């Protein structure tokens, strides 16, 4: 049974068809690279899968659950979390607080429990431990008290990955997770993605660097002008010169 399904997804903005009949079925665990020229509709597809946009037609499903018109928070709770191309984070609070925010099922987020505090401190302590483990995993444990704004660009990408993981989502949708990051940190992020795949996650990531795609992807989907024009293993896809022409356009 596939983990993430898209069926005939269509989306247009004022007559401009940004997605036209997008179909796929992806299973966990796996790493899927979504490639294609700028403006192909990759980010729009991610926005629809995560509930930030509603499709004009078509369906998407996450582990048997229809998620087509659900709001973003519901989809995260069902197990699909994302990062943003334009890096969204809370820059004025600490790294630790950013990741804590992402923890699911927090008792202290209900008004009554926040006031009465039954069991809130205990859960908070446990969550802090989990968050510190996650920060260690992405290599930011030494920066836990720093503000989000004090991190370098690459470290902020790591932080947004940690936030994503803190939601305990099984499906991770990463919008350009290594773009603009120095090569050292970039290969570290790719390394982490491989590890996460081995822990059973399904990762869909948008990427322009063919080298990175070749290195870690199990499957490549090529998008152009709102359509998925082909799909296959990196060796199959990246050797087709026609596709590379579209891509390098």
């Amino acid at each position, binding site marked *: 049974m596939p983990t993430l399904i898209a069926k005939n997804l269509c989306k247009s903005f004022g007559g401009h068809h940004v997605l036209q009949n997008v179909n796929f079925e992806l299973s966990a665990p796996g790493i899927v690279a979504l490639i294609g020229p700028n403006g192909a509709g990759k980010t729009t597809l991610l926005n629809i899968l995560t509930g930030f946009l509603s499709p004009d037609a078509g369906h998407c499903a996450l582990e048997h659950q229809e998620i087509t018109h659900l709001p973003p*928070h519901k989809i995260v709770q069902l197990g699909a979390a994302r990062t943003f191309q334009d890096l969204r984070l*809370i820059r*004025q609070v600490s790294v630790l607080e950013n990741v804590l925010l*992402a923890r699911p099922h927090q008792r202290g*987020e209900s008004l009554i429990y*926040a*006031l009465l505090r039954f069991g809130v401190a205990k859960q908070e302590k446990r969550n802090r431990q989990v968050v510190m483990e996650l920060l260690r995993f992405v290599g930011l444990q030494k920066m836990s008290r720093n503000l989000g704004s004090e991190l370098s660009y690459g470290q902020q990408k790591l932080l947004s990955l940690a936030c994503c993981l803190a*939601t305990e989502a099984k499906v991770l949708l990463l919008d350009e997770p290594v773009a603009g990051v120095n090569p050292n940190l970039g290969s570290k992020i790719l390394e982490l993605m491989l590890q996460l795949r081995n822990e059973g996650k399904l990762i869909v990531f948008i990427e322009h660097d063919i080298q990175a795609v070749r290195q870690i992807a199990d499957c490549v989907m090529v998008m152009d002008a709102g359509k998925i024009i082909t799909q296959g293993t990196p060796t199959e896809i990246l050797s087709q010169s026609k596709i590379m022409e579209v891509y390098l356009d």
Partner: protein
Amino acid sequence: MEYLFHILILSSIYTILSVSLSLVAGHIGILSVAHAGFYGIGAYTSALLTIHLGCPFLLGVLLGMMITAVVSLFISIPSLRLHEDYFVIATFGFQIILFSIFNNWIDLTRGPLGIFGIPQPSILGWKIGSDIDFLIVTVIWTACTCGIVYRLVTSPYGRVLRGIREDEVFTQAMGKNTLWFKVSALALSAGLASSAGSLYAHYITYIDPSSFTVMESILIISMVIIGGADSLWGPIIGAVILVTLPELLRFIGIKSAMAANLRQMFYGLLLVIMMIVKPSGLLGRYRFK
């Protein structure tokens, strides 16, 4: 002495208003201009309930809070889905509507004539007659209000509120139902403002619509901004300053008609100075965008 108690009671009532507003204005970063309206609903509800139905004081306060919280949903659920700017405008409109209701629903509120003879409260047989009694009750409830707000903003609930303030899209992407947090915080804030209205009505024993105008909302907002919207002590200090400093005008021998006008100017001036010198308020860190 009487006069001192009066100032302290008023400072205390305004502290409830400013601290409750700071929950939404400072922590979520959405400005409600309807706070005086919520304050008015509390004043009218408990005044009318005690006069016409002989309702006990505490029950009247509680019912006022509940009604106001529900009323706040009419503004929050439709407008908080939209961008924050719409929310400010929507609350402004709502404030105008509430004022017209106070002013024009003559059968219920007696309109501009106001309601007098509001009974002095008693709690479980304790008749709160003197100013000192009233001061004690008001200070206790003010402390409770500050306690409630403080507990909320230092909990995971408060963390989500600040998440919404800094980046709502990110907060949604972290699995939080941001609309619910905004709606619930505004309902609580409105309910607390309502309790301040009940206290005011039973203290002064007379209310009319002029106490619940948009100018009053702006006064409360000024207290929050001058003190520092996202700190605990800021709104308290803001309330005390804006209640007491204008009283000093009397001591320098300005006639009361003139003093009323000067007071408005004084608030305006203070706000302008604050925006230039320290936009995040005396004790705050958050600046309004």
